């Protein structure tokens, strides 16, 4: 780098350029993982909230302080109301998630493997995709009443769409060279599905799963606040009537934690199931 300079007989103390030239290339990937990096953002939010409440910048009628929320959560846990409502909510979400994932997966495989299937299925799913679940609720109430069936159907519809869209996309982008290979080793339809199609679509499916899990909780909030006599959403709706922001916050935190934990679970599965990949994140 410096060979163009004349041989220097200047004293060694002469000022050197501020930054010595480095031969290392700029790293373009995101770099090494930060320990507990996922916790930085949530902890920062919590810190702002605590400081704001302690300093009195946040009006208690708008937002209770974190420690009051913790106290309320303890009370709710001690008298069993929180667990009871949480269990009801979880049952609804899991049932909807189960039905939605199964339906989305089957529809995606049928649409991905046959042109006729795609023609029949893809259009209606795309139409559903552009209609918010909330807008469908009046119709679903008329069809299924205000009971559990309506709630689970709403969650199922919210889950089905991302599972379908991402699995179908993953399936359609499987390299055609693998299809050729499957033909030359004479796989039958079932073996082709098991060894090539499903593993090939797995990255797409798991991405869809992350959206689906979030959607399940979101749809739960909607159905529980519209017409329910139990569940976290009902608990929050009741608290609104009495102006108990601390109970509302407990509900929000529970929803948030559920979302975070379930997303974490899916990502864990993702990391283990896709260990064969070498990606930017590695």
């Amino acid at each position: 780098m410096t060979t163009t300079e004349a041989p220097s007989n200047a004293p060694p103390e002469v000022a050197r350029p501020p930054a010595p030239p480095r031969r290392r290339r700029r790293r373009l990937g995101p770099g090494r993982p930060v320990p507990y990096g996922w916790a930085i953002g949530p902890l920062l939010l919590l810190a702002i909230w605590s400081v704001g409440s302690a300093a009195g910048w946040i009006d208690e009628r708008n937002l209770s302080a974190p420690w009051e929320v913790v106290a309320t959560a303890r009370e709710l846990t001690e008298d069993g109301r929180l667990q009871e409502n949480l269990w009801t909510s979880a049952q609804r979400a899991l049932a909807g998630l189960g039905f939605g994932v199964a339906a989305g997966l089957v529809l995606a495989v049928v649409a991905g493997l046959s042109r006729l299937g795609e023609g029949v299925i893809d259009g209606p799913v795309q139409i559903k995709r552009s209609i918010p679940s909330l807008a469908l609720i009046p119709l679903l109430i008329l069809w299924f009443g205000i009971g559990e069936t309506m709630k689970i159907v709403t969650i199922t519809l919210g889950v089905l769409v991302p599972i379908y869209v991402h699995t179908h996309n993953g399936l359609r982008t499987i390299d055609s060279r693998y299809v050729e290979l499957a033909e030359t080793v004479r796989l039958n339809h079932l073996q082709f599905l098991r060894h090539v199609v499903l593993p090939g679509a797995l990255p797409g499916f798991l991405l869809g799963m992350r959206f689906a899990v979030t959607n399940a909780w979101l749809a739960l909030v909607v159905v529980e606040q519209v017409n329910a006599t139990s569940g976290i959403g009902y608990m929050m709706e009741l608290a609104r009537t009495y102006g108990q922001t601390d109970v509302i916050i407990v509900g929000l935190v529970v929803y948030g934690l559920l979302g975070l934990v379930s997303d974490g679970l899916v990502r864990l599965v993702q990391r283990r199931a896709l260990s064969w990949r070498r990606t930017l994140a590695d």
Partner: protein
Amino acid sequence: MATHAGGLSTGTAAVHITGLVRAFGERRVLDSLDLTIGPGEFVALIGRSGSGKSTLLRVLAGIDHGVTGFERLDAPENVSVVFQDARLLPWKRLLENVTLGLTGPGAHERGATALAEVGLAGRERAWPVELSGGEQQRVALARSLVREPELLLADEPFGALDALTRIRMHALLRQLCERHRPAVLLVTHDVDEAIALADRVVVLDAGRIAADQTISLPAPRAPGSPEYAALRADLLTRLGVDTDVAAPEVKEVEEA
């Protein structure tokens, strides 16, 4: 390889094609082609870019679903293909890649044996992404041979490998073919590769067989010998390469 027994006369041929036509629109890529390959015979197919080599291979592999016409098209049911890319399923470990589609007891043992045959014993549980290009192509060879094919089709299988790896792969392929004795159709654009490996070199031009040359050089086919040089010059001429210009160190007949 030098022990080619003339499979054509001894029993039924592995491949028997007459009048094969494959057209893409108006263009006839294969134009009433005739080709016979005996059982256990190693045939190298050379030709210029676009001469229809890969098209012929895909027809024989049964993955061309739009064959235009033929008078006779006999190929064994049990055909294996080695592609230019190793084409391993990235989500399956090596052993599962080798045994893909095999069922019944002993499939795993056979797969492990095949991996050992290509020098990858003990790597059964590795992922394809952990292997070098040459190793991946060896797994592809194991996947083909574990099926004990009557016909092995190879579409420029060493085209993507470096020169050193390619020489080692030649030795391995020759050794494996002597053990399993499938009929082989090797598509290549490398005349030296064709002479080094094959019992017979077939030149494809304009959708037909333009030359069919049995190679009777003794087993270690040294590029230095006058017979080798004469054969090489002859094949290059048939491929339309001016041999005065093509000095021995120029290996490629065409761009890959």
